[in-house]
């Protein structure tokens, strides 16, 4: 059984990629550039699935870890001309180390205190990188990042689409295996009941620190990927508010589910585009409609935040949870066309296979 699992997972991934590509070719759902943006966000969203969804911890330091990844790309990749793959690995090590340091209070504390110590990580890293940037000639321009070379140089959006798909697939496989292994089960135990988990012999502080370190490494990975695509990093772009964007992804998709993280990353990345389109349709004579589209950045952020709150209050399991609940209800009700029911059941199996 365990031996067959990766095959199922791989098939599910292939199906997912096929769906994506089909949507892309039809061109109606989103463009290649938007697809790249989504795939770049997925590792960071998956990192939160691990940290918050599985281990039950909160971190507000996403921007700091993205910044560490970005600056690794700018300094190690750009300044010292180290190859892309090496930068990727180094950045994950740097991010993981930062996450480990931030979680040191886990030896004594839990709950809110640990969330506050991640704010320390954000402010200290931000200040350090800001000082670094301001000390050199990069003060105004930031660091330039060369184009990534993996055998061939990744220059077009299509190149990146292929590369990102491979990287995201690897992340999904690694995390899915991790969630099913001892460490994943230990995280689940901790998030459900710390006391009970410790009684079964789980060393809580160590597993918490592992969760922080591993998830931080994946967030840094996202930071490297986006830096290489944008081609330039400055410290100003990494605001504290980025944390809530990534949390919106996993909350809307479904906390703790890999499928949920991917669905959520897609929705939250594309929502600003949709919001802008809708705001443009509103009658611009109305003062409210005007200020909504004049401050479109705030409007789209408002929509994302409101949906996040709504999901947390009304349906804490997110879209994936809603989907499985719906299917279960249809199955139990034993009504309706059996062909539809069968299709839904098959879909449920596929969702389970992916998650």
């Amino acid at each position: 059984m365990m031996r067959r699992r990766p095959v199922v997972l791989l098939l599910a991934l292939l199906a997912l990629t096929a769906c994506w590509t089909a949507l892309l070719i039809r061109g109606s759902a989103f463009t290649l550039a938007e697809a790249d943006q989504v795939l770049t966000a997925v590792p960071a969203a998956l990192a939160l699935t691990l940290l918050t969804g599985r281990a039950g911890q909160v971190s507000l330091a996403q921007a700091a870890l993205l910044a560490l990844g970005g600056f690794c790309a700018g300094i190690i990749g750009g300044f010292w001309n180290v190859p892309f793959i090496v930068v990727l690995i180094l950045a994950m090590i740097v991010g993981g180390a930062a996450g480990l340091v931030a979680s040191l209070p886990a030896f004594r504390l839990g709950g809110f205190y640990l969330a506050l110590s991640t704010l320390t990580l954000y402010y200290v890293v931000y200040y350090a990188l800001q000082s670094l940037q301001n000390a050199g000639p990069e003060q105004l321009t930031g660091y330039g990042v060369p184009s990534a070379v993996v055998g061939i140089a990744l220059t077009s959006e299509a190149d990146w689409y292929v590369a990102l798909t491979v990287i995201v697939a690897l992340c999904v496989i690694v995390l899915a295996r991790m969630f099913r292994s001892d460490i994943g089960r230990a995280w689940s135990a901790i998030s459900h009941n710390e006391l009970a988990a410790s009684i079964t012999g789980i060393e809580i502080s160590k597993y918490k620190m592992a969760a922080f370190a591993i998830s931080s490494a994946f967030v840094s990975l996202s930071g490297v990927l986006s830096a290489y695509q944008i081609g330039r990093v400055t410290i100003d772009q990494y605001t504290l508010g980025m944390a809530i964007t990534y949390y919106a992804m996993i909350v809307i998709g479904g906390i703790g589910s890999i499928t949920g993280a991917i669905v959520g990353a897609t929705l939250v990345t594309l929502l600003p585009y949709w919001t802008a389109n809708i705001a443009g349709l509103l009658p611009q004579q109305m003062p409210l409609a005007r200020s909504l589209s004049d401050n479109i950045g705030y409007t789209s952020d408002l929509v994302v935040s409101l949906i996040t709150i709504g999901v947390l209050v009304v349906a804490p399991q997110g879209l994936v949870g809603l989907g499985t609940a719906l299917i279960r209800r249809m199955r139990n009700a034993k009504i309706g066309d059996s062909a539809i029911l069968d299709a839904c059941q098959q879909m449920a199996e596929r969702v389970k296979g992916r998650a």
Partner: protein
Amino acid sequence: MLTALSDGLITGLILASIAAGFVLVYRASDILNFAQAQYAMLGAFLYVTYAQHLPLALAVLAACLTTGAVGAISYLGVIRPMVGQPMFATVIVTVALGNVITDISGVVWGPGQRSVPNFFEHLHLEHFLGLSATNVALLGSGLILAFYGLLALMLKWSHMGIAMRAAAENPVLTSTVGISVTAVYIVAWVTAGIGATLAGVSFAQQNGVSLGLGDLGLLAFPPLILGGLDSLLGAFIGGIIVGVIDAIVITYGNSQAQFAVTYALLLIILMVRPTGLFGSREVRRI
């Protein structure tokens, strides 16, 4: 040095009144309200808007009431339905709540900086008391001190204050003796909103108000931890200590370092003495 101290004192009082809101809400409903700083920003924006139509004293009052109402709505609409959900969900929901307030303010008032009508200007205190501009700002902090005094008195002696302490201690037992715990929680959230508004208005007296005020309010976490998460006195003293440290960092060091330094302090306190100076409740150790 003296200016650094007096600046620090003013900042400290502002931080203290935001931290007081954290303490009230934490004691009542056991959650850390990350939107507290945004209440301060909202209060300052509302004060600017009301001041265009109302006398300044009434404008402050109206801003306090509106923000208090927003606090009550936040509790009833968002926090109360979340009872029983894990800790991380309450953190995410309050951060998102803060985002919503910031975004609505951004849509309504725009991203720019607004100057704030000086509350004490029309009283012409500087004429008959010979007060300088800094002293006027100190007077604004006096408003916060008065709020603190009232709050402490209320918690100590009034019926609502006793009910509040009882509800924090044991909600189930409190409700069995006929006290409406929901009402107690609502009072806590409204008071937190009022305290934040006073802080926001006082801060804006000197610096004007912009959306960045919400970020600045995050400086209130270190005093909160320094004082102890559940102690009002601790929040007050912690606020002043962190305010002075902050002013010294800005005067003699680098203003960009203020967050890094105060948050490094927070981490050190967490490692060395997690209950802070005056915290009483046992910190959840593992």
